[in-house]
């Protein structure tokens, strides 16, 4: 797994630098405009983008065949993709909390938004990765776009919900969403391993 992860990091070096640049730009623009949603909206897709790119490279390079023939297990291959996604998503999402250093951002609504988009980000990864394992990157791209669209609509709805309801019900709602995202990682991983085990390379 460590070998596959290192390979992914080296393979995606250029892209990761580009993502880092985007993160900085969105963070600065979010901070200057006083709009936290601008940044947390971006963080939501970070967990899926890098593993999907890594899988696309692997499909082209036949990496899975080589790795499996060399003693890397199917479970480890799947785990490496989840780990890569989380290694990128968690720091980018956690950076959202830095906004709270600015007094104007210290509102309950913003805290709920960070939790909500954290949960949404995990759910995007939970849905997209098994799909990509099952049907491949090319076919999954269209579905991925639909997932992105659905999640964005859901986010707008959820943001309005937070604004309208506020207080404890909203807090319980975003906590449940976040918990669903975290629990989904484990469920999604088990599903992905099952897909990988049945797959012929």
């Amino acid at each position: 797994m460590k070998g596959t992860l290192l390979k992914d990091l080296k393979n995606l070096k250029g892209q990761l630098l580009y993502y880092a640049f985007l993160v900085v730009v969105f963070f600065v623009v979010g901070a200057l405009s006083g709009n936290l949603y601008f940044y947390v909206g971006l963080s939501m897709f970070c967990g899926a983008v890098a593993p999907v790119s890594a899988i696309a490279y692997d499909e082209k390079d036949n990496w899975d065949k080589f790795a499996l023939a060399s003693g890397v297990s199917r479970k480890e291959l799947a785990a490496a993709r989840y780990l890569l996604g989380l290694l990128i998503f968690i720091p980018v999402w956690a950076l959202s909390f830095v906004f709270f250093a600015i007094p104007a951002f210290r509102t309950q609504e913003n805290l709920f938004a960070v939790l909500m988009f954290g949960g949404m980000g995990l759910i995007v990864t939970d849905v997209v990765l098994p799909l990509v394992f099952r049907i491949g990157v090319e076919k999954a791209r269209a579905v991925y776009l639909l997932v992105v669209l659905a999640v964005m609509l859901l986010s707008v709805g959820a943001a309005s919900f937070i604004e309208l309801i506020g207080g404890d019900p909203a807090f319980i709602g975003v906590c449940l969403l976040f918990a669903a995202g975290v629990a989904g990682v484990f469920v999604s991983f088990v599903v992905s391993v099952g897909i990988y085990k049945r797959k012929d390379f």
Partner: protein
Amino acid sequence: MNNVSVRHLTKKYKDFTLEDVSFDVPAGCVVGFIGENGAGKSTTIKSILGLVNPDGGKIQVFGKDAAALSKKEKNAIGAVLGENCLPENLTLRDVSAVMRLIFAGWNEQSFFAYAEKFALPEDKKIRNFSRGMQQKAALAVALSHGAELLVLDEPTSGLDPVARDEILGFLYDFMQEERRSVLISSHIVTDLEKLCDYIVFIHGGKIVFAEEKDALRERYGIFRGSAEQVAALGKDAVAAYIRGDFGMSALVDRQKAGAGVALDRAGLEDIMLYYARGERV
């Protein structure tokens, strides 16, 4: 002892079936796996390496069920899988850093020594390598982690004769230790003729023969004559025949044809051709 033992391997696809495939790769031997495109060579090799899930049969590697091999045991297999399997965005230095985490016995010195012998630049991305260079890089990886068994699917395709000969030389060196084995598939039968101890021929998903190379050469000859002359040799003697513009030619079992019959020498390519394209009596 056999380093690989395949028994009654079956794999069904929508438009192709690998059926009852059985053969061995003994320790100390090079086994050539021949057959036309789509005959089932790659599916068999992928089954041995655990890349496809067989529908039936049994595969043992190092005397153990292939599906139950530990990471350490799998590390003792060096694989080159036809198409490039190394990440194209990486340089050989990057590849070495990655392989160190994949193979417990990764030997960086040996890897870069092979890279030098193969004239592969260390800091150039693999995507900028020619196809031949990519094949050599894959072979350098396979030879640099203490493998006891090499499984090579078309390792010399896309290489010029000089490079092919060079690679065969490295495989000879690899075979200097008796416990080691090589299973190699290739379209270039002349390469296998130089290197192999055994030949396994697969056609239409079924094994036609799995025999010692020298025994094959001794057994078969090519008879050229009229249709009546071929028929006169008898059903038992003629393995297959091909009709030509000026008569017939047949792949014939020397012993069964009798001592008085004039036969040309049959190379591996001839044997493969007659079995694949020829008609049976």
